[in-house]
């Protein structure tokens, strides 16, 4: 059965007929072609499907698409600035070599975008906690933490200068 929902995805208003059985991850990938949203475990353990819903990092595999009605969704595809430049989190991931196979990367980047947007400093321990909903099977966690820490610091410096 289909239901019509209205939502904003990466800044664009969308009207979609979604299957009531679909997860938000299903709809983002199949109907909108946003394949940065990865399906890893599909039970909310690995975080590869993380997107921002109304600004909050959520596992889109454990979220019914019909619930997205009226909400604002952000995925990695929506991070690029108007001039084509990368988001500070994306740049930091490149500079710190925080990407190995890349499967967990989009999800972690979305959590990091929320963290960076909070506009405050985090200790390493806090960042570990904030990123604990993500699994990286290449176990590149140290570089990932370095990248998020750098993005947080750079964003704070830019905001104060």
């Amino acid at each position: 059965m289909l239901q019509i929902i209205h939502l904003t995805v990466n800044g664009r208003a969308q009207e979609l007929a979604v299957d009531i059985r679909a997860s938000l991850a299903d709809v983002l990938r199949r109907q909108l072609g946003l394949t940065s949203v990865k399906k890893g475990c599909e039970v909310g353990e690995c975080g590869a499907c993380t997107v921002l819903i109304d600004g909050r990092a959520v596992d889109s595999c454990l979220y019914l698409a019909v619930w997205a009605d009226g909400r604002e969704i952000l995925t990695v595809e929506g991070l690029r600035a108007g001039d084509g430049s990368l988001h500070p989190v994306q740049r930091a991931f490149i500079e710190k070599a925080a990407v190995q196979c890349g499967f967990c990367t989009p999800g972690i980047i979305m959590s990091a975008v929320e963290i960076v947007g909070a506009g405050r400093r985090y200790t390493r321990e806090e960042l570990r906690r904030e990123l604990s909903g993500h699994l990286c099977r290449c176990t590149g966690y140290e570089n990932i933490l370095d990248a998020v820490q750098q993005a947080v610091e750079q964003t704070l410096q830019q905001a104060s200068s």
Partner: protein
Amino acid sequence: MFDLEAIYRAASVQDAIAALVADPEAVVIAGGTDVLIRIREGKLAGCRLVSIHDLPELAGCRLDAAGALHIGPLTCFRDIVDHPLVQRHIPILAQAAAAVGGPQIRAMGTVGGNLCNGATSADTASSLFALNAVLTLTGPQGSRQLPVAEFYLGPGQVALQPGELLTDICIAQADYQGFGGCYLKYAMRNAMDIATLGTAVLARAHGAALMELRVAFGVAGPVPMRCPQCEAALSGTLFRDAERLIAGLVREEIHPRSSWRASREFRLQVAGENAARALRQAFIQAGGEV
């Protein structure tokens, strides 16, 4: 795709109750972090859902005129952790909510869902037991109140009648004022894990004396539980004696099972050890002299 037959998105509590009366076999879904996993596992295959996901009337925390703290069952763990009223009056619940899953799960899973699943491992349940939380259940005939300890009937079984929803979690002022509290989760990992054992301790202090003690556990029996005999024996004693005796006393009262996560013996060991550790932190938070 989830194997579900239908979903009704309720517009209000009354609307949800009407939908549940019309379809008694329908499953209530709130945050979805447990129900969707059970559907994925095939345990609820082909189910019909009544979604209360979007009912703002059931979310948030407030103090009433009598000083009682009301927690909306649809408040997600993340909002429990961050809520100023929770942090100020019942930080033990913030500690418990922060122990659930990971950040993305906490942004979606709800405290009411944690209770209504009926799992003994629910992180927030033992704290709510220690806080003597009173639940409001609303059904077609109106509302009734039930202490959280009477809500649990058995593993996965709670006292919700057909057509009933959990609509309020209330903690009376006398049950939080002056108490220090501590929740300790024992699990294999620090994140994304189910509790092997959950320990919640509330304490009131006067100098070196432990004026009142409350101890509750998750996974120490088929449902979350208090230790009334231990509480009675140690309330009104000196902290230094209570800290020495609490491990032995709780071990006599709880009855954990062996499971693939841990043996009965290991759980008994952890329960005693963590009861003593949680007592120390709760007592210090209550202003006691250790």
